């Protein structure tokens, strides 16, 4: 159970010296409670406080950084089992796999694809995160060459090196050892040598076993050896096993029941025989590094979108940028529909408008992501806001009429909007599903 801010405060030096960067000890305590500050920032902690707080304010799942530079990604530091409890913080890295038996052109093409492919949704650029190179040739030399091929593209993507053979990894690390590649994988058989490699290059390491007991032992060995940036490969035999083990790891870690399981989870979708499904399950069920063969367009987009959905903050509505949006190709006589910048409202309305096939403008006003109903109730949606938005976004230049359709739930404001804007206000339906019919009936006449 995480400590509350007040309990933490009691253990702090109460000097308010600001050296931790926070104005008061209480503020610092609040940050610690939320897992948003590092205990070491306070130089005056007593040893007792350190030991008590150390165990409870340390994130239950370790944050592991893979890769360097602008394209590195961090996984772990999750605190909940369900996203609705707080949020999921670090989206899984989706990593495309190449093998060292592929022709160089193919390796280059895939690397370029990961570098270049981007899906822009809701104002965010969604990308794949890295390249995994698997040693299937059995030759250290071939493996090293494949890694070199990838690095030569200069995509600077976080690498994942997959080989059972430490010699092969050693050879490959010559080419990318300073880029914090993720090494796969330490098992009972090679854990010592793997640790040595990881330590030498300062890279994160995957430990692999189908048994949680063995994983705990492996983790213990590695940490004792000074390798603490670990990732767990649960070696699932099937999807059911993945869900069970991954859930167990998450639950046991966040409750601090088995601190040695407090590391991000690795999933190789390529070895499941059904990559698209594996990626989907990896995203929802606590996967943090998901390796897959390059996905075809449909599943690639679906995967990026699902990941974006699951890793949005459920307590913070996604907001659209306020402004004028077009549906179809509207002209000077097309209707204008005003609504709020809560993304769900926006998309729902946009969807229905598109299927209604009436070209129109959407005037999106900034209610800080509140829905119509709450924005009206909280006073966030006001006639002033509407007036200013019309001015700021230059709606007057877009249409020749002066009619504004407002959402049904905003009807209490209709009179005041008319007065403030001089536009004629039409009250639309409360339910976006009825907008098509509304436009056909009301706008035409």
């Amino acid at each position, binding site marked *: 159970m995480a400590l509350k801010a007040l309990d933490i405060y009691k253990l702090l030096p109460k000097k308010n010296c600001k050296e931790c960067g926070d104005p008061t000890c209480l503020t610092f305590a609040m940050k610690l409670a939320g897992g948003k500050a590092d205990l070491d920032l306070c130089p005056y902690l007593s040893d007792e406080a350190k030991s008590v707080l150390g165990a409870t304010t340390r994130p239950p799942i370790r944050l592991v950084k893979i890769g360097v530079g602008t394209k590195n990604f961090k996984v772990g530091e999750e605190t909940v089992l*369900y*996203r*609705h409890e707080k949020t999921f913080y670090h989206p899984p890295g989706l990593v495309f796999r190449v093998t060292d038996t592929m022709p160089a052109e193919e390796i280059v093409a895939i690397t370029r694809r990961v570098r270049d492919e981007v899906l822009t*949704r809701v104002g965010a650029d969604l990308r794949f995160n890295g390249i995994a190179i698997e040693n299937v040739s059995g030759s250290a030399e071939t493996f090293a060459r494949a890694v070199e091929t990838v690095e030569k593209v200069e995509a600077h993507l976080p690498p994942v090196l997959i080989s059972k053979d430490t010699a092969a990894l050693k050879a490959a690390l010559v080419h990318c050892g300073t880029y914090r590649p993720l090494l796969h994988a330490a098992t009972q058989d090679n854990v010592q040598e793997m640790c040595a490699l990881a330590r030498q290059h300062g890279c994160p390491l995957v430990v692999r076993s*189908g*048994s*949680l*007991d063995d994983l705990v032992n492996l983790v213990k060995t590695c940490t004792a050896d000074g390798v603490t940036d670990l990732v767990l490969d649960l070696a699932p*035999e*099937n*999807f*059911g*096993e993945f*869900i*069970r*083990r991954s*859930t*167990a790891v998450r*639950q*046991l870690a966040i409750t601090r*029941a*088995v601190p040695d399981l407090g590391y991000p989870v690795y999933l190789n979708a390529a070895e*499941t025989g*059904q990559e*698209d*499904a594996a990626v*989907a*399950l990896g*995203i*929802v*069920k606590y996967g943090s590094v998901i390796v897959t063969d390059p996905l*075809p*367009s*449909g*599943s690639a*987009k*679906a*995967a990026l*979108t*699902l990941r*974006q*959905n*699951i890793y*949005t903050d*459920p307590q913070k509505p996604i907001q659209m940028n306020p402004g004028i949006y077009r549906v179809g190709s509207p002209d000077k006589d097309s209707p204008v529909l005003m609504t709020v910048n809560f*993304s*769900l409202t926006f*998309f*729902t309305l946009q*969807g229905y408008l*598109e*299927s209604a096939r009436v070209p129109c403008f959407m005037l999106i006003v900034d209610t800080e992501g509140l829905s119509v109903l709450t924005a009206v109730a909280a006073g966030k949606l006001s006639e002033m806001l509407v007036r200013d938005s019309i001015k700021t976004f230059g709606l007057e230049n877009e249409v020749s009429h002066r009619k504004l359709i407002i959402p049904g739930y905003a009807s209490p404001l209709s009179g005041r909007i008319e007065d403030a804007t001089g536009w004629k206000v039409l009250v639309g339906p409360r339910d976006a599903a009825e907008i098509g019919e509304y436009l056909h009936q009301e706008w035409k006449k």
Partner: protein
Amino acid sequence: MPFEMNFGWTTPIGEVVLGATKADGGTRRISYRIGGGTTLPFLESSPSSPAPLIAFEICDNPDFWSPIVKDYCGDVVNNANEWAKKADADYGADLVRLHLTSTKQRNFSDIASLGSVVEGVLSATSLPVIIEGSNEPKIDSEVYQKCGEAGQGERLLLGTAEAGKYRSIAAAALAYNHSIIAQSPIDINLAKQLNILLKEIGVQRDHIVIDPYTGALGYGFEYSYSAMERIRFSALKGDTDLAMPMICSSADTLTIKEVREAGDGLQDETAIQWELFTCLAAATAGAEILCVRHPGTIVPLRKALAGMKQPAQSAGVP
């Protein structure tokens, strides 16, 4: 050392029977008992239920159906009976979900025809059937009476009850012993409220399937996902008003831009993948009936579900 995941669950999910075989007074070749889960989805080592089930959605008037599906299925979309037959024999669905879209025409009044549509589909397939009635207050009463009567004895799943419209569906369920889908707009409290209303009118818990409403992937799906997780969580924690199986339809997913505008040759693949991702995520959140509209989704979805339903290995996980 064995690791115990301790969630402190107290209450299993209630069970609902779909379809009636000859032994139960119906004519279905199979009936399903869904629900009964005692922990989070797929954690059980030997699940008692065959769920998640895959339902294929068809309609009796395809005017507003996704053009991608219409193109893929061909002429059969104009004949609900043939389409149902295909869903059963060719596509390999577990259930057929018939939307009476003909009722959506303006001033629709030919209620009598609906009876024969329902009967037709019931004789075209011997799978359990879900019937979606009208959404027009003026005709709801007659429509659901007709649907209920036409499916008497077959233990249909009737949809869709909402807070403002549940009386007729409840009446049909009670009068003709069917189960119903109770839909609320992505809100656990509203879901609970509707179930209480249904309880008050006399619908038993084992006749209700919750539809928390599934937003399209990328367009609010996360809200649905969390609503499902929360419903399942509260149910297992003892809230019997929420302890019913859930249904998810990925129908909205086919209407979004990414799918509609996927580009030539990519539409089917995209539609299938988006349905697949939606359904799999929903299944892990607790949905036990997964509805799809693209026939191509069924095979990969079934394959993935089979893997998820594998009995537990001995890996130190309960």
